[in-house]
């Protein structure tokens, strides 16, 4: 029997295997990864200094350990050349691998806007454990970091690097922290929390170029003509689902790889989950939906076709200087924010016309209201 083949050993691939092995201990499984295959949790990459963990500390298991623990084959450093869905075959650089079922757990790429300058190659983005190891090495003995992007990852890194003793300047063209996730009052609370740690903000302008400055310094040039000099520049602008491999294989894609509620793509016996997937229109690059998907997919792979459902999907943002939990309303939902703010404690409730709760954003002590509010919210994908 041909194996179940899983491309990707991040949280999506790893948890699919883990859940599958609870149901089926025998079917051969081959995992392929382009990186070193070490098991780690991606959300922890933006909490390493706070938790005093190096890249090696964040490694929870080597690929050998994963292979042994779950009775699977893990092939590392493999760049998949293509997928032949008609022949049910994964094309490798110098061989091929036939599958009974194929799981795409490809993740997402960091997206960086086009930057000019002679030091663009020195701009870091941290998208996996190997990136993180390089980033940590580059920070050795350094003091100042410029972060491009004030979204979830940018704010988490701003907090974490401040906790690590670095002086951080954060550039966010949309004028406030977490502009796409939070209403203004909540953004201000987060901004104040980070400012109290010493984070400086450049709100408004875009980064245009990164140039070599004096010595080892890097100079980030902004669209308003100002400049920021720092030792290290980190880009944390956004994520894009990895869809090119699926596109080339002729699978239907949109923002992500399109799947139905059973996580099946447009090709038979090919599934997708996690940051690369668009499940009935939902692209949710968070662990909670990923885990729900891994559990459902494990059942499907074990022979019992199962739909995934997403309940309430709150997102916790790791900014201990001002904790944030946000449950965004469905895309395009109409309603208004109802905001109670007291210092850094903001409870922002997004209500529809008839007063029903559609989403929320909580900061500071108000995060304690999360569980109560979750009970009032509609499921994301019942």
């Amino acid at each position: 029997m041909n194996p179940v083949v899983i491309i990707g050993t991040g949280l999506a691939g790893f948890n699919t295997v883990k859940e599958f092995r609870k149901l089926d201990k025998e079917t051969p499984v081959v995992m392929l990864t382009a990186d070193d295959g070490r098991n780690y949790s991606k959300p922890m990459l933006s909490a390493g200094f706070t938790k005093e963990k190096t890249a090696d500390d964040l490694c929870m298991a080597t690929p050998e350990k994963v292979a042994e623990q779950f009775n699977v084959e893990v092939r590392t450093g493999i760049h998949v050349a293509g997928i032949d869905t008609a022949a049910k075959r994964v094309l490798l650089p110098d061989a091929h691998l036939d599958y009974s079922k194929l799981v795409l757990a490809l993740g997402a790429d960091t997206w960086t806007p086009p930057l000019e300058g002679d030091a663009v190659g020195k701009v870091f983005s941290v998208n996996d454990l190997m990136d993180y190891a390089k980033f940590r090495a580059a920070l050795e003995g350094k003091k100042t970091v410029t972060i491009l992007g004030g979204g979830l990852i940018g704010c988490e890194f701003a907090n974490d690097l401040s906790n690590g003793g670095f002086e951080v300047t954060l550039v966010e063209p949309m004028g406030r922290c977490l502009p796409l996730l939070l209403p203004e009052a909540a953004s201000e609370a987060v901004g104040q929390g980070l400012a109290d740690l010493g984070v400086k903000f450049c709100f408004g302008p875009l980064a245009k170029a990164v140039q070599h400055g004096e010595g080892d310094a890097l100079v980030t040039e902004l669209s308003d003509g100002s400049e920021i000099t720092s030792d290290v520049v980190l880009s944390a602008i956004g994520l894009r689902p990895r869809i090119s491999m699926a596109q080339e294989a002729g699978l239907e894609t949109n923002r992500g790889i399109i799947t139905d509620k059973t996580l099946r793509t447009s090709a038979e016996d090919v599934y997708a989950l996690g940051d690369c997937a668009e499940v009935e229109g939902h692209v949710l690059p968070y662990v909670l939906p990923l885990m729900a998907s891994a559990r459902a997919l494990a059942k499907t792979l074990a022979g019992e076709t199962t739909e995934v459902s997403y309940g309430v999907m709150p997102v916790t943002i790791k900014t201990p200087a001002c904790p944030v939990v946000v449950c965004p309303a469905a895309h395009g939902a109409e309603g208004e924010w109802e905001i109670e703010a007291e210092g850094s404690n903001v409870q922002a409730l997004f209500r529809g016309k008839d007063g029903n709760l559609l989403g929320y954003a909580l900061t500071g002590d108000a995060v304690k209201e999360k569980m109560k509010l979750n009970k009032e919210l509609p499921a994301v994908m019942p």
Partner: protein
Amino acid sequence: MKKWECVVCGFIYDEAEGLPEEGIAAGTAWDDVPEDWVCPDCGVGKEDFEMVEI
């Protein structure tokens, strides 16, 4: 009383506080948290938690 941390997302379960909103009373020892309980922040199971302090 001990604290347990989710290794995937960093959520802390504090035995002293429990999770009353989820029906887990303050003072509930980790061993007495139901086996099918999952991390409220990221959805992983109990096996993905480790003890962080005593």
